């Protein structure tokens, strides 16, 4: 093996458990972002089928009217809600809001940028996404 950068690569990103809930939120944010991008591309393809006539459009719509289709749409709801809620937290943080104030650190050096408000917002984002998914399931599977 030649001398290399010893970078963790995607494997390191896909192992979010070592650094607490913030790293897990980062990982979820990436996954849901990619998922939503894939959904958007699929959605554009699906809706573009309307130009092929009514029967083609209804055939395409019927794909999401199955059990698997409902589960997929429920996942999209969850991804969308988490990505939005956590995105607001991250955007505010990126502007320097809610990341604490510089101060002389004291042992055991709890980082102010990883404060309890951020943790609460992450848990709230996951909770709201779960609630939205439950609502989605009840609408899609309910009669």
């Amino acid at each position, binding site marked *: 093996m030649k001398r290399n950068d010893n970078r963790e690569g995607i494997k390191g990103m896909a192992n979010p458990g070592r650094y607490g809930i913030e790293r897990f939120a980062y990982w979820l944010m990436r996954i849901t972002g990619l998922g939503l991008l894939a959904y958007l591309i699929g959605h554009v393809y699906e809706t573009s089928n309307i130009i092929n006539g009514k029967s083609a459009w209804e055939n395409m719509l019927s794909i999401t009217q199955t059990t698997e289709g409902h589960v997929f749409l429920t996942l999209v709801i969850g991804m969308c809600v988490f990505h939005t809620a956590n995105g607001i937290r991250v955007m505010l943080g990126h502007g320097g809001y809610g990341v604490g104030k510089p101060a002389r650190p*004291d042992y055991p050096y709890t980082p102010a940028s990883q404060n309890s408000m951020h943790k609460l917002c992450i848990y709230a984002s996951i909770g709201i996404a779960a609630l939205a998914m439950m609502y989605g399931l009840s609408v899609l599977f309910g009669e």
Partner: protein
Amino acid sequence: MSETTFAEEQSSTEVSSSKTVTLRIAKFNPDHDSGQQFVDFKVPYERWTTVLDAVLDVKKHLDHSVAVRYSCRQASCGSCGMKINGRPRLACFTKISELNSDVVTVEPMNNYPIIRDLVVKLDQMFENHKKVQPFLLREDSEITGPTKEFNQTPEQLEEYIQFANCIKCGLCNSACPTMATDSSFLGPQALGQAYRYVADNRDKGKNSRLKIIDDSHGIWRCHFAGSCSQVCPKGVDPAMGIQFLRGYLLGFRK
């Protein structure tokens, strides 16, 4: 004096210690080996034994070939950064008893080229550190005439003193998920130090530094995962500094 007696006197752990831990050391020489191999050693330890003590015990008594970089043994020099049980830490600042594990795995830090075993090449980190101009930028100086001092209130000092604690151990860059995939990223160490000087009221180089970090592989690659701040052994909190810098670039901070 026999060689054995000399080794016992140099041992950092008491011979009477009843507790032992399995120290699993990653061994790899890029010039000879095809891949990393883990070698297990049984090491005695006490409540106060650090991982560095244990590694040095192995080096003295069991395997002289283990390569490890260290110097001050008190979390001041930043030399002994390594991955301990999957997380970047300073070996001299991590007690075995705190890990609550019968097996302690030590590996070289990720995101740095391995020189040998636990020693990594920190060149890129220092290059990135230099890129952000880690010094006061201004026309005059404290030693040019007329001689004067740059006054600073305790409140102004508080704005950056936390970030001046950086010992350049590189743990933050090793924990960063962006550094894991982007070899051109400046990294939390350099960005945190950019903020350290931007926040210093004696410095006049804010615009120059913001221009340097406003790059596709600069500050915009940070996604605020915060792992850098969680592993920092000196409480620097680079994630906070990076978000403040981004606040300047986005116009939220003046």
